[in-house]
């Protein structure tokens, strides 16, 4: 029973990692930029989720507001911070990204206070019985459900629509894609919008699970998402999804069985190191 419980916990955590890391992988695939500030958008999503829920009492509305506004902010970040640096070495954009991340954390501290925010009436705290005494909270069910819905929509978009197919082509080879009339700039906007909106959704989910958002909650998410996309084989969407779930499950079991030696975050990286020793190119090498 404990094993099933841990597995479920791992999947919930993995689903959140997947939502964060997917945007990072998409942006890396398209622009070869390691978008560290992505984790700040995750934090901002959490704040917006809590604030809008507290003001209006509606969690779905809060989720939509968080995803749309953070998605738009992602476009602004691309336009103002990354686009002028695209001709430079990728390290320049990386440094800009780290600077942005730190700046965002400080802005959160100034605007929202350094102690964090919580829901006034935490939604979905009730538990459901999945049978055989296996309990899961409604909020965790929502996290899994949301992840499945969002990923299915993305999968449908990228394989069944012309925009999605053009998007995948552009991620693989922008130069050739532009030869066929695809507007690369528009694809980049779409990429930043979707990636950032997913991070915001993850932020709202984490706020639901922990009932706390604080200025630095993006820090762990930031380096763990980097570890996940490396493990997944930089730029590979499928690899990122598998790596997210794998790290979620390793953490959840590891915390119980070897938690007295290694803490949760150390475990994730130990797993990364071992996995990369076996498959240095990542789980799925991008084409």
């Amino acid at each position, binding site marked *: 029973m404990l094993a099933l419980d841990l597995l479920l916990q791992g999947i919930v955590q993995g689903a959140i990692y997947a939502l964060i890391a997917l945007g990072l992988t998409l942006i890396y695939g398209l622009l070869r930029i390691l978008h560290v500030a992505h984790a700040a958008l995750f934090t901002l999503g959490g704040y917006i989720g809590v604030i809008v829920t507290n003001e209006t009492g509606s969690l779905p509305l809060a989720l939509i507001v968080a995803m749309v506004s953070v998605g738009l902010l992602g476009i602004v970040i691309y336009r103002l911070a990354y686009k002028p640096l695209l001709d430079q070495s990728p390290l320049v954009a990386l440094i800009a990204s780290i600077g942005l991340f730190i700046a965002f954390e400080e802005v959160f501290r100034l605007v929202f206070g350094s102690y964090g925010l919580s829901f006034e009436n935490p939604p979905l705290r009730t538990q459901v019985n999945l049978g055989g005494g296996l309990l899961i909270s409604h909020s965790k069910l929502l996290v899994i459900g949301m992840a499945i819905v969002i990923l299915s929509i993305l999968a449908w978009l990228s394989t069944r629509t012309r925009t999605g197919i053009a998007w*995948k082509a552009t991620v*693989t*080879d922008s130069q050739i894609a*532009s030869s*066929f009339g695809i507007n690369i700039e528009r694809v980049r906007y779409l990429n930043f919008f979707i990636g950032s909106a997913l991070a915001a959704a993850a932020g709202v989910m984490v706020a639901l699970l922990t009932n706390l958002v604080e200025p630095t909650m993006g820090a762990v998410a930031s380096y763990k998402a980097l570890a996940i996309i490396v493990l997944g084989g930089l730029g590979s969407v499928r690899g990122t999804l598998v790596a997210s779930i794998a790290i979620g499950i390793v953490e959840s079991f590891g915390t119980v069985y070897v938690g007295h030696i290694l803490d949760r975050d150390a475990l994730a990286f130990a797993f990364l190191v071992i996995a990369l020793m076996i498959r240095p190119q990542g789980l799925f090498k991008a084409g």
Partner: protein
Amino acid sequence: MLSVKNIQCGYGDIVAVHDLSFDAAAGEVFALIGANGAGKTTTIMALAGHLPPNQGSITVDGCDISAGPARERLQYGIALVPEGRRVFPDLSVEDNLTVGGHTLERARLATNRDNVYQIFPRLAERRSQLAGSLSGGEQQMLAIARAMMADPKILLVDELSLGLMPKMVDECYQVVDTLKKQGLLIVLVEQSTQRALDVADQVAVLESGHLAWQGSGDEARTDSSVVSAYLGT
């Protein structure tokens, strides 16, 4: 139809092509030959809009397109079959063609896809297979088919035979011949000089970025010493 006047292009301070001019008409194969690094691919990339020339002009049917971006080249009927084929390996054959027809409306997309499948029945058989899993020759056919999707008037083909088995090279050249008879202008870059000469209506030999010799295909074929002198073959 295609008119190139005194173009100079390069990367940064390095000039890769000096003062190149030529005219080519519909229904022709214009072969650009030369050794490695002679500036053939640079010329193709300039025609495709990926490398705007520093000087000179490129006009299609009287429209100056020199400075226009690659994305607008298809509006002037120019399509690219790039060096190394560069099909989208993670997309299916069918989706590669969908990208090729990105500028088309939905109904035309389907019609053109059927037309392309008729020219390349082998691609029709493999339509749901990932492009990355095709053989080199099949990928070359897909690259040509992808470029044909938007009904181009001018096809830029960079290194048609590179890395292909002789049998596949024959098939690819047969396709070039068919397209030429349909009235397309084909600008063909080749390192395999003999194959290019066999189909060429016009030949230009590039040497270190300069035009070293230019003439009709017949001249080049009858007086092969002209070409071999420049290519050292």
